[in-house]
């Protein structure tokens, strides 16, 4: 594939009510934005908690955005990667998972993280946030899928997940990943790092 896959978005769905109170994340992200030399190159936090089905509360960074959003199919911890991916398609997806899981682990370790919203570590959305170079078509799916499946095999385990593409052409190229049995966040992170 000769296109440069950089904009990889991941979302790990969480349990709990559809409209969680995200206010406690403001303190968390206030601390995060003061971190020196964070790999994510944080810019600032952004508060969209007033929007039902909106972007929630997030950290905007030069390398990625990260936070908790309320966008369908439900609330979840999301990661929007922007740059610094290299290697094969599979390598890039694995790297995105590695970065996302690192941040998710850090977020979940924060005392202010709302306990009611425990992560569903086996229920993910994977989106290529780039309609220009990766339109949501069968052809692009054919280009991406092998690498994505290989990456998911590394993170979740071979043959342990289903991968369903969102065929709505108005949506970005995206997939629902559902693992047969959920590994813990730590186990997933370890596999992504491995």
């Amino acid at each position, binding site marked *: 594939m000769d296109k440069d896959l950089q*904009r990889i978005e991941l979302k790990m769905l969480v349990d709990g009510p559809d409209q969680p109170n995200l*206010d406690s994340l*403001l*303190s968390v992200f*206030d601390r995060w934005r003061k971190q020196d030399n964070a790999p994510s190159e944080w*810019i*600032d936090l*952004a*508060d*969209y*908690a*007033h*929007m*039902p*089905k*909106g*972007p929630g509360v*997030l950290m*905007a960074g*030069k390398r990625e*955005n990260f936070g908790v*959003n309320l*966008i*369908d199919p439900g609330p979840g911890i999301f990661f929007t990667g*922007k740059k610094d991916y290299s290697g094969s398609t599979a390598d890039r997806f694995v790297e995105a998972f590695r970065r996302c899981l690192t941040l998710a682990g850090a977020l979940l370790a924060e005392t202010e993280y709302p306990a009611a919203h425990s992560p569903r570590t086996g229920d993910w959305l994977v989106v290529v*946030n*780039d*309609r*220009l170079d990766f339109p949501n078509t069968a052809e692009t799916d054919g280009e991406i899928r092998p690498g994505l499946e290989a990456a998911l095999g590394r993170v979740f385990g071979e043959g342990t997940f289903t991968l369903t593409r969102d065929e709505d052409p*108005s949506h*970005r190229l995206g997939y629902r990943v559902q693992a047969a049995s959920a590994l813990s966040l730590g186990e997933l992170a370890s596999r992504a790092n491995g």
Partner: protein
Amino acid sequence: MATATTPINSERWAHLPEGMRQEIDVFETELRRVQAGQMSEKVFLEFRLRHGTYGQRQEGVQMQRIKIPMGMLTADQMTKLADITEEYAVGVCHITTRQDIQCHFVDINDSPNMMRRLAEAGITTKEACGNTVRNVTCCPTAGVCQDEAFDATPHAWAMAYFMLRHSDAQNFGRKFKISYSGCADHACGLARMHDIGAVAKIQEIDGRQVEGFEVYVGGGLGSLPHQAKLYSEFVPADEMLPLAQSIARVFARLGEKQNRSKARMKFLLAKLGMDEFRRLVAEERARLPKDPAWDAQIAKACAEIDEQPLKPPSAMPTASDPELARWLDTNVHPHKQDGYSMVEVFLPLGDISSEQMRRLADLCRKHVKNTIRTSVDQNLLIRWVTNEDLPAVYQGLKELELAEMGAGRLQDITACPGTDSCKLGISSSRGLAADLHKKFKNGMSDLADRDDLKIKISGCFNSCGQHHIADIGLFGSVQRKGQKTAPVFQLVLGGTTKSNAKSYGLTVSKVSSHQVSDAIRKLTTFYDAEKKEGETLADVVERVGRARIRDLVGGYSALPTYEQAPELYKDIRQPWEYTKSIGVGECAGEMIDQAEFLLEDADRLNFEASLALEEGKSGDAAAKSFEGCKKAADALLFTKGLLLSDNYDTVGEFRKLFYDTDVFLKPFAENFFRAADEGSEVSAERARLRTEEATLFIECAQGVYSQA
């Protein structure tokens, strides 16, 4: 990574309208040049502002403002906006108080492709910011309003596209804002707070009913609001474009350019007085060469704007569902055309997510034919909904979480971006608006649906939230107690949006961010107790006097110490200690003379000529290098008072004013004249020589300009 010499992938975008494609290519070229240190940062700043790319409070990211003339949107445009905000921003479209769309946290390297994709849908970001004619606004109900004199839409459209990129509007010292209203009484157009405010009117002339406008000039909010003054009781519609062009010329020529805080046209008008201003405008009008675009733009607008319903008219349904009944009451407004209604989509804080926007576009496709508008109240208005469809539309909006009731009521608060993203923000206008929105659902729900009061909030005194024209206006401020500072809001009362914003409020008292809701409760109770028949809050304030109002709310300005109430030293929805942090706003950045822009264009064109040479395109290289020299010559001619819209002969005038007078180095000038005679069909060797000659010519022009 792209560099200054990486060719732009124009092939991919060959389907765009040529002019827009080239314009965006130029933007990308200049972006790369400034990143490579080949262009002045100062010039690039104004250049990017003129493409709607505006530096945020946070370093390294931009706000992209997207012009939506008259707030008119098609469903396809909504889908495109959804896509680009999802991919390049944070997944939110924000509707502004001037009917634009903004998105935040954009990487400037994404801006060119954002602009190209918007151009695919016929949307431009050009002149959305900067010292230019900004978005032309218009009543969102124009064309379907029961009270309008006539549909102002085609006239506003003609104005918007006539003034866009107009050469007479490139040398302003500050921004310039134009609005159109369909009638005098309602708030929609806010004519009296614009540089040019046009209010539709019909006058009988020689037995004919002639469409025209009552024209106001020199209005503006900002830190020092000015009411626009009546320029003319009646300007025929076909005279509006030349009038605007004449006013633009006067403003460009005589407006303040050094002192940014005094550079709006309102200050020029105050200095000259209306009589002298009219005289100068009439003088410009008299010498304007006839421009076929004056008539052509209006004709084009009338031909292209032909709003039609998707479905036939129908009767209003009866609403047995109390929620539907309430929604019909607050969010649905009657059309002047029987059988149809307008649906107002209430967007708290003016925000709609990308996915909501996309699915709303789908909903609109089912019920209307591209008749959607943004409003200055930061909502969306869907026009031409056949009445029997209203329950289905309501249901569709509910599924999208877009059926919030109370559009246009007290709970529908206007707020600028404030400290969330603006360099000038002092207090969190959006935090306050979000907090009040929540309280209007719980704790203040008895006030939520009031339709006699409006709240508008700005993050600072510059009034982007239009606090001066609100019944209850608030702007961000700071109060110090000991070594600590607290975020507060100045309460501004006495303003109104009615009658096209006929009066502005004045400050009454400071209120802590956390006590604004209490102050609002107190004010509404007072208003209800004191008002006489038909009085607005402004009327009551004027009648009872500000001293009494100050007694009412003055207690809120007494700030406890930090030790007594540390929570007051944090801004709303910000659990960290407040610090005032403002930067230099780009809205009032340094004024860049049109000559500087032209010289920058000259450099760029000559650079592109050298790229063409590398690609073996001699004809292109010769043409571009000559064009570069022409731009440099125009820059110098500008310093002599020649205006591009005078359509002068550049080579001839340059010869007369700079060659014959020995101001310009003769050998370099003679190269220019020879190139004019040669044309662009030259050999490769000659093309190369021409590029070098152009470099020398442009350098010499820079030297002459530096001493002008």
